[in-house]
């Protein structure tokens, strides 16, 4: 048995049989969504082919600026995705906080992770840096989206409650305290749930990939554990920043509620 599994091109093509099956089912059920499924599959293929070539190039460069540029591009794409996914209008001040939470929340744990945990040499070694950055950014993106959405909702649906607390003499922080802890919980729960089910309910993609590529399961779990910790650190920091800086964007300096859509 070879150590690493290399898929021949015709076998790769054979995997598309499942897509064809889905298209047939869609046709039989009269879903009328065949085009949508096809576009999704084609997009996935093209994006991954492109990513593969770019990564080949970046890995061969091993240059700090190239690696950091890739990080910046990933963060920027994540930012645009978050702005698109948060339901309801978000104001400029909250957008700024989201950007800060994403950039700080992913960069700081990532730097610690590369230097202290992985101890890669050099620390920006793209073979490690970029996949790990991808996983942390992807998970933080979900946490930030949930956090920003919950926060915006709280100010929309509980405006009377918040204003009442202000009238009774509360500082903005006291007035929204309950919402902040709720928001933090809601945003962090998917990551905590993922940890609970890990290894029993599902074998995470990264670990599965490593095992398929020939690594021993014991090495694969070590990586999976540290990655999960990295993701946890990154999501917590990003969400903490979102709620603690985010709620302030709904008040002005006079501790008055403002319309965040302005």
């Amino acid at each position, binding site marked *: 048995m070879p150590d690493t599994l290399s898929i021949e091109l015709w076998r790769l093509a054979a995997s598309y049989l499942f897509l064809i099956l889905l298209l047939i089912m869609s046709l039989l059920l009269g879903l009328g969504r065949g085009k949508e499924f096809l576009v999704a599959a084609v997009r996935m293929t093209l994006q991954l082919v492109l990513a593969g070539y770019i990564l080949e190039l970046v890995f061969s460069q091993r240059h700090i600026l190239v690696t950091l540029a890739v990080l910046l591009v990933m963060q920027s794409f994540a930012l645009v995705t978050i702005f698109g996914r948060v339901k309801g209008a978000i104001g400029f001040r909250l957008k700024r906080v989201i950007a800060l939470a994403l950039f700080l929340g992913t960069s700081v744990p990532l730097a610690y992770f590369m230097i202290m945990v992985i101890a890669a040499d050099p620390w920006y070694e793209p073979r490690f840096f970029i996949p790990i950055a991808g996983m942390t950014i992807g998970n933080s993106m979900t946490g930030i989206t949930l956090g920003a959405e919950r926060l915006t909702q709280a100010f929309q649906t509980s405006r009377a*409650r918040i204003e009442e*607390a*202000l009238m009774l*003499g*509360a500082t903005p922080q006291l*007035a929204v305290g309950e919402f902040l802890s709720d928001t933090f919980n809601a945003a962090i729960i998917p990551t905590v749930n993922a940890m609970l089910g890990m290894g029993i309910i599902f074998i995470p993609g990264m670990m599965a990939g490593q095992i398929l590529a020939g690594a021993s399961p014991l090495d694969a779990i070590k990586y999976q554990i540290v990655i999960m910790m990295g993701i946890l650190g990154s999501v917590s920091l990003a969400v903490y920043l979102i709620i603690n800086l985010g709620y302030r964007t709904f008040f002005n300096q*006079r*501790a*008055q509620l403002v319309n965040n859509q302005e």
Partner: protein
Amino acid sequence: MQAAFSLREVVYREILYIPSLDIPSGLLFGITGKSGSGKTTLLKLLNNLISCEEGEVSYYGQNVSASDPVALRRRVVMVPQSPYIFPRTARENIRLAFYFNRKELPAQAEMEKLLAVLGMPGMLDKDTFVMSGGEKQRLALARVLLLDPETLLLDEPTAALDEENAKAVISYLAQWASRPGKAVVIISHAGALIKEHTDSILTLSGGKITGMNEKRSANA
């Protein structure tokens, strides 16, 4: 006569324009006017929930815009027309008011006594979910009266009350306001009742002062 609030050349959007107004302390100051006449906006300006675009609002000589907004709201507490009642009990509502205001919770006897005065005896642990509109309104009043701030700003505090309860509340407020260093500004449509118990009545129309009826001033 010392003014609790002084307003000079106050403009707020297209809603309110007040060239000059002094609201004295030590008495019950009434505001009347039709819907949309700017009554609630005026109260919010005094509570610093909103700030005027032009002019100056001062509280005992201190410019409201230049003072610490939260510290001011702890001295000048407002009850809106439809106050938000927190879930669970009356006791929990009082506890939260004191938590927000950063004050020590009063003794249970004191809470019970005030609820009884407002016509809600034995309701300290009543679930707010099953309270009537009138009970909720009186609970909102009880919360702030127990806080005992310097000034109370009340937006239609008797709107959900029957005549008897409204009378009891207004006369209690008049008594409360007559204590040294206290002031109550009250918006009300309860015509005769408010006329009987307030010392001054300001009438607003289209955001402007159209009438000022001073029966007596605090130190007169």
